[in-house]
């Protein structure tokens, strides 16, 4: 391992250097909104919220953020994205791929795992050039999480709390300095002209190992089933009563899929100009939790209840994606649990299914024994 060390103070210089060559994006504080008067008696203090956004300088960068509202997928797959514009009824089309050179700072390892999964989804078969162009021109600077970001995160269970094999540049907070691992040529390119960086010494390695090993104990396991059991657990739970119960609660608002770093379903819409012969085609985020998502002309809806839609989401995350990509479709970031108004949380759902199975197989053993 080639470890470099960067004093925290050098971030200012580094981001300035990078800003000359790249669009620099990183976690920053969401601009505060004024506290409206709560209607009830429970006055909650406003919580700090973070988003990935373009940085004006290092002062905006918040590397010790817990989580962001939306994951970094929005950089590669914007909420609303022009696919092409057309004129003269389509006889003239204009396509502009977004090839801005970009650096994203401070991606947590779970989100990095998620980007790798998106890479699979968008490169497999017919590649998605819009995604690929952005991805190819982006360098990711990930950061090691030293503490769980929320009680809803279960990255340790999903194996995403540590760095994946592919990365560009990875930071670990050593207190006054960052340890820096270089994972790719793209990553090392970011270090050009950076003066304040040095190669790690024995002591640095020792400190680094200290920090990493101290991390282990701080992360609890939260799933009662093992990652490897999830596909088989789901395989037998398709008709579980749990889905009906959750379906009753679900608001169908699609918040969970919007905040999910591995959700990428989209809709395609045209917008025409008043001449009716020119316009644009856009891709916009969609959600499998919306009523019309799977309905076809003639009105047949192939997933026509909130329970069925919710179940599809869980199967997609915990079974279908791992079956087809060999990567878990859920990276355990906990965002959906955090954002869900009716408290539908993957940890609870999986544990509930697991307990049911244990109870059933226990009973069966009793009968057989």
């Amino acid at each position, binding site marked *: 391992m080639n470890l470099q060390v960067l004093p925290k103070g050098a971030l200012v210089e580094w981001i300035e250097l990078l800003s000359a060559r790249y669009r620099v994006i990183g976690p920053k504080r969401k601009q505060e909104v004024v506290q409206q008067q709560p209607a009830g008696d429970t006055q909650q203090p406003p919580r700090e919220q973070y988003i990935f956004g373009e940085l004006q300088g290092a002062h905006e960068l918040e590397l010790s953020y817990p989580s962001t509202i939306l994951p970094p997928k929005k950089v590669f797959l914007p909420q609303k994205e022009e696919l*092409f514009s057309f004129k003269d*009824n389509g*006889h003239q089309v204009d396509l502009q791929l977004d090839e801005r050179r970009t650096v994203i700072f401070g991606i947590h390892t779970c989100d990095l795992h998620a980007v790798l999964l998106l890479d699979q989804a968008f490169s497999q078969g017919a*590649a998605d*050039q819009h995604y690929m162009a952005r991805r190819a021109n982006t360098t990711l600077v990930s950061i090691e999480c030293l503490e769980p970001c929320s009680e809803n995160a279960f990255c340790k269970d999903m194996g995403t709390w540590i760095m994946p094999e592919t990365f560009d540049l990875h930071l670990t907070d050593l207190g006054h300095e960052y340890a820096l691992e270089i994972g790719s040529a793209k990553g090392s390119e970011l270090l050009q002209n950076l003066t304040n960086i040095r190669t790690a010494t024995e002591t640095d390695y020792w400190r680094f190992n200290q920090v990493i090993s101290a991390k282990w104990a701080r992360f609890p396991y939260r799933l009662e089933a093992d990652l490897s059991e999830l596909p088989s657990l789901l395989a037998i739970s398709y008709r579980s009563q749990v889905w009906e119960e959750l379906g009753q609660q679900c608001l169908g608002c699609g918040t969970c899929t919007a905040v999910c770093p591995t959700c990428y379903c*989209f809709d395609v819409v*045209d917008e025409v100009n008043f001449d009716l012969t020119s316009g644009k085609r856009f891709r916009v985020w969609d959600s499998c939790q919306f009523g019309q998502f799977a309905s*076809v002309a003639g009105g047949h809806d192939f997933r026509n209840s909130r329970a069925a839609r919710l179940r*599809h989401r869980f*199967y997609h995350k915990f079974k279908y994606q791992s079956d087809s990509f060999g990567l878990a479709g859920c990276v355990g970031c906990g965002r959906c649990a955090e954002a869900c108004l009716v408290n539908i949380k993957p940890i609870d759902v999986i544990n509930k299914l697991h307990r049911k199975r244990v109870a059933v197989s226990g009973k069966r053993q009793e009968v057989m024994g």
Partner: protein
Amino acid sequence: MSLPLIETFSTTSAYLPLVARIADVRPLTQLEKLFTIELPGDLSLKHAPGQFVELSVFGVGEAPFSISSSPSRSNGTFELCVRQAGQVTDALHALGPGDAVGVRGPFGRGFPVRRFRGKDLLFLPGGLGLAPLRSLINQVLDERSNYGRVIILYGARHPSELLFQDELTLWSAREDVEVQVTVDRSDGNWQGHVGVITTLIPEVQLYAPNTVAFTVGPPVMYRFVLVELLGKGIREGNIWLSLERRMKCGIGKCGHCQINHLYTCLDGPCFPYAQIKRLEEAL
């Protein structure tokens, strides 16, 4: 040599349609029209029966349609049979010869025609389901000697909704094709069979082990037809269906067409029953 259309997307964007021209529009029924689409330059669709294209009306949107013409009969043009059902299809019905449309495709898995050589082929289109099967039927008829019996049982709700009536007449006239047509509700002039499509199946004599069945129609129809076909002893792997789903991209990205873990646009739309029978969301 003509170039396959699909290769034109790989260099630019998979979502960028190629501008094609409507060469001809022929009304088939009140709601359905047959569009002949002409590709520009040297391009050819190079499709397999059962595959579909994404057709754009610029400024309105895009929708998937099965290719209705046979690959054996196309040279730079192909046909789509389109039912007026919503935004894109309404707009399409308002277009005429010479108008521009966008085309992407062909997409999906069609019927693996070669595998059916020597087999007896049983076609069971219901209503608009004839659109994709017509492609396969005509291909089979163009290489008729490669196959055993060809039986077509076609059902529509009403005589006025029968598609491709001229072709049905042609097929019926052939010695080597067995055709039966039925309608759910008759009108005064209808001389033929009345009853849902499943009522035709028991009367057909089949050698089940050598029969491959193809059925395309609405979800309710599948349920009943499958019972009959399986009852006849046709193997699950020899019953082919084509499934319709909402679809936006056609290339396995947008997520709309998922049937459990399968993507209709990549893994289908043509499936052998054996592949989907355990999938809750399939039928």
